[in-house]
């Protein structure tokens, strides 16, 4: 979001050398380039073009194009987990039928971003690495308990989706790993566009519910975006083991509202957003519960 800045005009950066764009053929080559400390990864490139538009210096002297690295564009369902390559475009992610069955919250979140045109450019890795608490895919990925497979010059490590701010300058996201949902799991995404037109969400909420054989709640997750420090995984301790009725939904929604701090901006005041966080947590949970209760293969 922007408001008019006051003070001196933007510094003329035409005397700053433009970045070089490097196109490594392998991941090892890319990591070597990033190890130099003067390089930054490029996915779809949108963030870098917008930096330039804002008269900011390039993110680094060398920009390393990683979206096309081998395997980075793949979505693979393994025996016990799903991997989504960091180079997968949000449009491809939204259209993936396997993911739409397994984790509709993720495909819905990816499909809710901007317009189809933007979704064809933006990569999942870039969208997460932007560390923007309003971005939709990280909210959904937080609710499903996804992890980031990170590679750097010194080796590989794993970060939670909410730990993207701990990415070091010499690291890149290789892929995102999602657990496979158990039977009787449902998930849903809600993005409230308060003015009816596409923009950053007023509030965005992701919900995931797993039911036990007796129909009670085994696992419950709510993640809220567009709030301070977001996406925030709401603390729902103590709400499992009961039937997924409106009391449970109300209790979880209240925790989401109480446990998050939205900010006032052009889409609404913080007070309004707190009410909407509760409302859309309710809606996301109800959809997730319905999907969890539906017989296999129906309306997931």
């Amino acid at each position: 979001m922007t408001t008019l800045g006051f003070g001196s005009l933007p510094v003329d950066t035409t005397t700053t050398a433009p970045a070089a764009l490097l196109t490594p053929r392998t991941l090892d080559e890319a990591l070597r380039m990033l190890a130099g400390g003067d390089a930054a990864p490029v996915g779809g490139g949108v963030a870098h073009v917008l930096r330039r538009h804002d008269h900011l210096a390039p993110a680094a002297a060398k920009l390393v194009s990683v979206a096309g690295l081998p395997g980075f564009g793949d979505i693979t369902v393994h025996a016990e987990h799903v991997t989504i390559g960091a180079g997968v475009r949000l449009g491809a992610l939204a259209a993936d039928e396997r993911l739409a069955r397994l984790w509709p919250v993720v495909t819905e979140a990816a499909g809710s971003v901007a317009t189809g045109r933007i979704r064809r450019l933006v990569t999942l890795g870039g969208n997460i690495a932007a560390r923007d608490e309003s971005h939709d895919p990280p909210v959904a990925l937080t609710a499903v308990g996804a992890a980031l497979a990170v590679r750097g010059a010194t080796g590989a490590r794993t970060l939670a989706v909410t730990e993207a701010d701990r990415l070091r300058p010499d690291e890149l996201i290789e892929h995102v790993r999602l657990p496979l949902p158990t039977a009787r799991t449902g998930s849903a995404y809600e993005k409230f566009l308060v003015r009816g037109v596409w923009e950053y969400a007023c509030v965005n909420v992701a919900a995931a519910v797993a039911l036990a054989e007796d129909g009670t709640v085994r696992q419950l997750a709510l993640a809220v975006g567009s709030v301070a420090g977001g996406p925030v995984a709401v603390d729902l301790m103590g709400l499992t083991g009961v039937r997924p009725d409106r009391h449970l939904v109300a209790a979880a929604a209240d925790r989401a509202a109480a446990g998050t701090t939205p900010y006032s901006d052009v889409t609404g005041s913080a007070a309004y957003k707190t009410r909407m966080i509760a409302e859309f947590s309710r809606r996301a949970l109800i959809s997730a519960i319905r999907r969890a209760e539906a017989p296999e293969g129906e309306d997931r």
Partner: protein
Amino acid sequence: MTDPLIPFSPHDTHASEPEARKVMSLPLRFRLNQEDVEIHVQDPTVPLLDVLRGDLGLTGTKSGCAIGYCGACTVVVDGEAVPSCVQMAGLVEGRDVRTVEGLGGPDGLDPVQNAFVKCSGLQCGFCTPGHVMALRALLDEDPDPGEERLRETVDGNYCRCTGYVKILDSAREAVELERAARVAREAR
């Protein structure tokens, strides 16, 4: 303008690894409206929009907001509609780009363009190239997209003049004109 950057040193790569290609003040080569072009770009993060309008003089593609929201800059890259104001020029190397100047030919306008003329789908015309390219990409991918997909595509471009009614009429007419053109081609 800025100085050329220090050339990439081959000593930095492993001898057996293929050398990474570097795109900067080297020529940027891509296919544009079915011709090969080569231009020199100092800054690979410059938007494709600036290259098209500034370096190549193709001003049919418009800059409405420069931040990816309005769609006036829409061009087709490798068959997909993208906003050229946030498409990094350096990443277009080796790819296929189509702009509104590439539509139609000696036989006349493209069916999408004809549809806009027929249905009065434009007034000031500033948003029109963006709408036309978005619909062109859609119909290339799916000649019978259905009302919902048409609306979704038109929803991605702003227009201040028309209220979108006749743009949607033009989109539906474009489907019909495409179908008629295809039938005529197959009949020959």
